[in-house]
């Protein structure tokens, strides 16, 4: 069956776009099967689960019988996803009936999981060798610091306090699409702004996706990288794992992962080890499009003032995108959402919906419990200000005047209406405005009418 070209919008799309042979090889690894299962939409997960012990192909019609009529679109989305990822394999028999069967390797791996439970990919090192293991809080702080440093360098090298170990060419790869070169220096593009407003896991996956697509040029097999990253998400946070257990390829990328804050590298006397951080173990949670579950920090008041309990430069930069930051205290950023700041944001390509969803997703726990978490007058006003810029809609068009007779005028109106280009007509004064696209056709038509 010909594979439809999938534009890799997110990481799982990239996995699905791999050629069939490579995808089959990926499913040899149990952890990838688990990660792929967790990334499916909920209905697809259920289908995969119930097909686990069915050895006979199930006809399409019987699968459709499980669904209510208004759930049919979700059913189609789920089935398409399963087929794209080659979890479900379609086969057509002689009677031209298609049926589905679960991928055999996928099936056997998951059956083993169900009976024996989850087995760790590698064992943590004993604690007598690993001294000075950081606590979970220190690890979180380290991961956050690394990630923010990376992001600041990504946006503008001048803001970053110290540079990461990525080579300038690597950074250029990441910046492609997010920044554009202008005379005054690099400026963020529209997708760049949207990137900043995404939550951390989505940003991380975007960067990893760019990294993997670039890896082919450097001679690394993307399938190996994908399998290592998915495996990494099943490790335990805070436990040390020996670097000797990694293959050559994995060792080469572990340093880059440390720069992103995904793992922390430490050196003992004889051996060195890596410690996965929360960013690593949350990788598989965010594979599907679900909302982030981190703690928020923004409080928006009904008088359009905004308070963000954070001390990071990155948050300040992000808030500066659409609000006017007034004070920066040691643990608090005070700002106001004003008309000018929002107009600025809209000109840069950020939509009102993105700003509102950013505020809602990052709402401080105190206000998150209230419904709505962001006051309605603020959200309504943001949307109104956005439509302010869209008050006038411009369509290129042509005005036809001085028709010789009513008959010609009527014929011209009919013609324009049939071609979907009629914008305005005035029967009394016999004037008609048509869309610019059909201007040439109108001229031909009127010339014919004269004859």
């Amino acid at each position, binding site marked *: 069956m010909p594979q439809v070209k999938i534009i890799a919008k997110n990481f799982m799309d990239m996995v699905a776009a791999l050629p069939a042979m490579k995808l089959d090889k990926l499913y040899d690894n149990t952890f990838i099967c688990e990660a792929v299962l967790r990334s499916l939409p*909920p209905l697809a997960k259920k289908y995969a689960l*119930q097909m686990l012990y069915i050895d006979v192909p199930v006809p399409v019609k019987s699968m459709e019988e*499980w669904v209510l009529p208004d*759930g049919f679109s979700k059913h189609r989305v789920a089935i398409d996803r399963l087929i794209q990822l080659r979890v479900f394999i379609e086969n057509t028999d002689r009677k031209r009936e298609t049926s589905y069967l679960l991928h055999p390797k996928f099936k056997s791996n998951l059956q083993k999981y169900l009976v*024996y*439970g*989850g087995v760790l990919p590698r064992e943590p090192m004993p604690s007598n060798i690993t001294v000075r293991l950081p606590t979970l809080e220190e690890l979180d702080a380290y991961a956050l610091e690394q990630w923010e440093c990376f992001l600041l360098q990504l946006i503008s090298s001048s803001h970053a306090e110290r540079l990461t170990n990525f080579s300038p060419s690597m950074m250029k790869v990441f910046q492609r699409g997010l920044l554009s070169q202008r005379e005054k220096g690099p400026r963020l593009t529209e997708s760049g702004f949207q990137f900043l407003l995404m939550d951390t896991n989505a940003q991380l996956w975007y960067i990893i996706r760019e990294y993997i697509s670039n890896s082919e040029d450097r001679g690394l097999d993307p399938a190996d990288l994908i399998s290592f990253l998915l495996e990494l998400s099943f490790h335990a946070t805070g436990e040390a794992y020996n670097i000797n257990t990694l293959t050559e390829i994995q060792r080469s990328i572990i340093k880059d992962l440390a720069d992103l804050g995904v793992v922390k590298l430490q050196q003992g006397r004889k051996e060195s080890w890596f410690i996965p951080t929360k960013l690593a173990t949350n990788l*598989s949670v965010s594979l599907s499009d679900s909302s982030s579950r981190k703690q928020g920090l923004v409080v928006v008041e009904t008088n359009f003032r905004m308070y963000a309990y954070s001390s990071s430069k990155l948050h300040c930069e992000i808030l500066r995108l659409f609000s006017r930051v007034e004070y920066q205290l040691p643990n608090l950023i005070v700002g106001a959402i004003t008309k000018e700041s929002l107009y600025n944001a809209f000109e840069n390509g950020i939509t009102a919906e993105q700003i509102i969803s950013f505020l809602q997703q990052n709402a401080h726990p105190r206000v998150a419990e209230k419904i709505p978490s962001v006051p309605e007058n603020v959200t309504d006003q943001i949307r109104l200000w956005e439509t302010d810029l869209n008050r006038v809609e411009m369509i290129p068009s042509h005005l036809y005047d001085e028709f010789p007779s009513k008959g010609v005028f009527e014929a011209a109106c009919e013609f324009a209406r049939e071609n979907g280009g009629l914008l305005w007509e005035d029967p009394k004064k016999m004037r008609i405005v048509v869309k610019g696209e059909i201007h040439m056709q109108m001229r031909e038509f009127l010339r014919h009418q004269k004859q």
Partner: protein
Amino acid sequence: MASITSKLYSDDVSLLVVLLDTNPFLWSGENTTTNSLSFPKFLTHVFSFLNSILLLNQLNQVVVIATGLNSCDYIYDSSSSPTTVESLENGRMPALCSKLLQNLEEFLARDQELNKDESPPGIASSLLSGSLSLALCYIQKVFRSGPLHPQPRILCLQGSSDGPEQYVAIMNAIFSAQRSMVPIDACVIGAQHSAFLQQASYITGGVYLKPPQLDGLFQYLSTVFSTDLQSRSFLQLPKPVGVDFRASCFCHKKTIDMGYICSVCLSIFCLSLVRLTLVLLQLQTGRGRLQNPSSILD
């Protein structure tokens, strides 16, 4: 019937509370249906099902409560145990199974000690009302833990027959589950249908199923009971053919079809009583004047 979709959850993280029926009279072989499924086999089906729930989402939680003859207790809570180091010590059996079995054994020993005083004839009923209450208490604790919590639901794996003496307690539990919008699913593995569980799933919006073939219990569990609450609105799930709404009377705890209901407190009686204990107590505290006790009964 409460609609589950009114509480809009954005993802499919679920908390599943499983009520296991561990009634020794049920599993000891006197009942013909359960002869096809021994307790160890039943447990393997359940373990696989629990593993599958934990596989579906990293944040899913499973809590197992055992319904014994005289007591109930929490047997396993997946969120309390860190998984790493213990799994290595037990060889091939993962931590979930070993912990669960250990706790189950201790629970059964304790339950049996309470049993020594009385030996009821036939298959006694297990304490479903107690385990439902335990489940609802745990779920309330989860609700209060913050804005981000998994969607809870209860699954009853029940085999023993209904005990009419538990009618009031079970109905109270069902209504509080309805109020908190927690669906109660029921999978009946005994010989006969359970009126209480039919009512429970009907009122709370859950699924009731009596699998005809118990060998394939895991398949029934994974097809019907593993769906999260959001996807349920799109799927055709088994609907009960007829719900048995019979109540049991408050005086003798027998199941009755027709009876007498007090118009004040709505308690159900099978015989027309001259003295009406509940209402009399209320009136004697001075709420009204009691003219003729029998005129209260309608």
